[in-house]
């Protein structure tokens, strides 16, 4: 019974099965796409065709490694700022120029600009950068909220 249900699901959307599996992770073997396909009953060529199509459509941002930033010798934090509304975009653009800033969002609330900042080396380097950002015109407050404990990192969007 299970097999039949699963088979039907494959027929409905092999594409989605492949994308779900690719989000879970690729085996680090010589033929990773063949191995991925073997787990869900899809041939290697089909897996590649589907992933290429999702990449082209922009659904897949990239297929590559996900690293533990800290273990690569980086220190990072989540920063929150209160910025004068008229200066927010300019401040955000200035901050976003730094390669170590990977996420930068305007959000609702008293703290209206949030970004992540990672730099090679100790936390002192992070704090130094933040201090400089805090001096940008229009910045009224600048908080740093480094991680105390990580409970989960798993971005998985079932299709």
């Amino acid at each position, binding site marked *: 019974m299970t097999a039949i249900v699963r088979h039907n699901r494959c027929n409905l959307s092999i594409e989605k099965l492949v994308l779900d599996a690719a989000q879970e992770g690729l085996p680090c073997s010589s033929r990773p796409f063949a191995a991925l396909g073997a787990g869900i009953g899809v041939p290697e060529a089909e897996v590649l065709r589907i992933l290429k199509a999702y990449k082209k459509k922009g659904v897949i941002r990239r*297929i590559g490694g996900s690293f533990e930033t800290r273990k690569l010798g980086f220190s990072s934090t989540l920063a929150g700022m209160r910025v004068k509304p008229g200066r927010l975009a300019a401040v955000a653009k200035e901050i*976003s120029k730094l390669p170590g800033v990977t996420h930068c969002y305007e959000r609702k609330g008293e703290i209206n600009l949030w970004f992540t900042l990672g730099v090679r080396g100790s936390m002192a380097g992070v704090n130094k950068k933040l201090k400089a950002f805090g001096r940008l015109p229009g910045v009224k407050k600048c908080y740093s909220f480094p991680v105390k404990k990580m409970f989960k990192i798993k971005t998985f969007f079932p299709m």
Partner: protein
Amino acid sequence: MNIEESIVRALQGDIPLEPAPFKKIAAGLGLPEEKFLGAVANLKRRGILRCIRAIVRHRRAGYPANAMVAWKVPGVRALSFGKTAAASPAVSHCYQRFTRPGWPYSLYTMVHGRSRAEILKVVYNLAEETGIKDYLVLESLREFKKTGMVYY
């Protein structure tokens, strides 16, 4: 440049979509494939490389709504809150972070969903389940930057 550094450099971007992508990357680094794969396995074992996978743009994958929620959780309840939040499939990230004077929120969750209503329901249920009623739903108004980290 050492081997590990060049591997991180190669894998922080895209791997080629072809049958033997690692063979190609290894060749570009002047390494036999087995040596490359061995070094990758080693990085994985040490927890430096979490995994190699497809990273999707959630908006284009049918999950346009997201919110960062900051929760005011007493220290003694942080662990149980973190575990409960982490168990929810709609929560992609959950961290305990340091608080600051004037900002008592200590737990942060990123919640994704197909609609705003779906997200608010997840948040409401989490509040009910944990008994933590003091929280801020920090919805994003504008995205200025979102990229992967470049290490080298």
